[in-house]
């Protein structure tokens, strides 16, 4: 669901911004060198970026970009930007980069430049602590909760049949976790970051990784051709991975040891 919504928004953002972006784009690039870098993030996607009770934007994405900025010695200012307008803001120079759980894909690569992936995104299974389920195949004949039309829905539909009564479709990730916690299903499947976060808040549940789920990655986005900025971000990312601060941030938000897959 999330992925498709984001692709839609991308298309919309492009159309909306093309008409008035040319002048602003040129000006924005020239200024970017001197002043602090403006970062756009859509704060509705816990635990990557969300508003806490003090209306501050916090989350994994925010900590990562702050660690990179500190490591590379530049200043940043984070602006909460609605997802639907986030690429328009980048195009017309309102912001210099976007970090907002953006999945790297070929379609987006044609319009923007991405850093190396800073987060490995894949599907993740949530089950009760006592469950013996170890792979997707083990869920055969069991009840599964997924978000309607999400990647998890595709995965489950392909494996068990589109009209299988064992697949229960809900509107959001919190609902599938609630259904699992209430004992209504044997497992819930969803995006790893969000699932792991919700499971970490619920001591009765655990996560199970199926290595057959395809790997995708979240990347930091800059305008096409901004090589100096991209190099800085990539260097910073590599450095915080090397010095362990990436692992600390990962543990802080996902409540478990980081291991590269």
């Amino acid at each position, binding site marked *: 669901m999330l992925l498709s919504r984001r692709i839609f928004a991308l298309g919309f953002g492009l159309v909306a911004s093309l008409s008035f972006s040319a002048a602003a784009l040129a000006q924005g690039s020239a200024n970017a060198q001197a002043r602090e870098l403006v970062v756009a993030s859509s704060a509705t996607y816990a635990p990557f970026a969300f508003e806490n009770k003090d209306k501050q934007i916090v989350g994994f994405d925010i900590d990562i970009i702050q660690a990179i900025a500190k490591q590379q010695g530049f200043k940043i200012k984070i602006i909460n930007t609605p997802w639907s307008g986030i690429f328009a803001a980048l195009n017309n120079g309102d912001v210099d980069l976007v970090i907002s759980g953006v999945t790297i894909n070929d379609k987006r690569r044609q319009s923007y430049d991405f850093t190396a992936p800073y987060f490995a995104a894949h599907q993740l299974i949530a089950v009760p602590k006592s469950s013996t389920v170890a792979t997707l195949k083990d869920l055969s004949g069991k009840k599964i909760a997924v978000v309607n039309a999400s990647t998890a829905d595709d995965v489950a539909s392909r494996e068990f049949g589109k009209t299988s009564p064992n697949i229960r479709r*809900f*509107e959001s990730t919190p609902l599938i976790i609630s259904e699992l916690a209430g004992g209504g299903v044997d497992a819930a499947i969803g995006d790893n970051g969000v699932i792991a976060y919700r499971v970490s808040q619920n001591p009765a549940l655990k996560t199970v990784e199926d290595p057959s789920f395809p790997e995708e990655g979240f990347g930091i986005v800059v305008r096409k051709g901004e090589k100096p900025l991209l190099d800085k971000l990539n260097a910073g990312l590599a450095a915080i991975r090397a010095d362990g601060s990436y692992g600390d941030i990962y543990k802080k938000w996902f409540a478990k040891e980081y291991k590269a897959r």
Partner: protein
Amino acid sequence: MMEPELWFGWFRPDILVEYRQLFLQGAWMTLGMTVVCVVLGGSWGLVLALARLAQSRHAPWSWICRFLLRWPSTVYVSFFRGTPLFVQILLMHFAVMPLFIHPVSGLLIDGDLARTLKQEHGALISGIAALTLNSAAYISEVFRAGIQSISKGQFDAGRSLGFTPMQVMRYVVLPQAFRRMLPPLGNNMIALLKDTSLVSAIGLAEMAYAARTVAGAYARYWEPYLAISLAYWLMTLALTTLLRRLEWHLARSDRS
């Protein structure tokens, strides 16, 4: 099967055919739920209506009627009519039910029975509970209006013939009130039939769930939603016809 291109350009019946199983099961679920909720909601609604009308001149019965019957039932009706059904369904399924039926910590049922109940019928139980409690609130008002529309003289006449108050209600007032209540009751049943669509939010595979699933899978909206609109319409038409015949039947004494 015919090629999709041979049909109207904008309409793809093939995706309905592909998901026909889900639609058919959904239609049965919708019908079954409506019947169960009409029966349960009607019974509970009658109890509520009688509770709201309970009166006595003598202590302590007058106090019991006011504090244990009239007030609680008034608050009940006010709550269920004053909050959205959608919210009641979510509250019932994700908060109330896990409290009572839960494999680990159910107050009423736990263990394997709770697991089976929740997994096989969880959404159905929550949906029926929420719809029944909600429709009973509306139906009780229909009953109350119907009963109050019967003149006080009928009640007094029954009492003077030696009937107890309950017998007067059963044999004199309710049969007359029922005829007047039929049209608004029909309204309530139609509303109930359509309200079952809200239960798709908790994952119950009724008709709206089938349409939502197809819409999600294909990002197409005409086919699934037009199909279930027609199905809901046919069901409400059938219900209306049945009620018309019942009205005609009950009015036979007026015609002879």
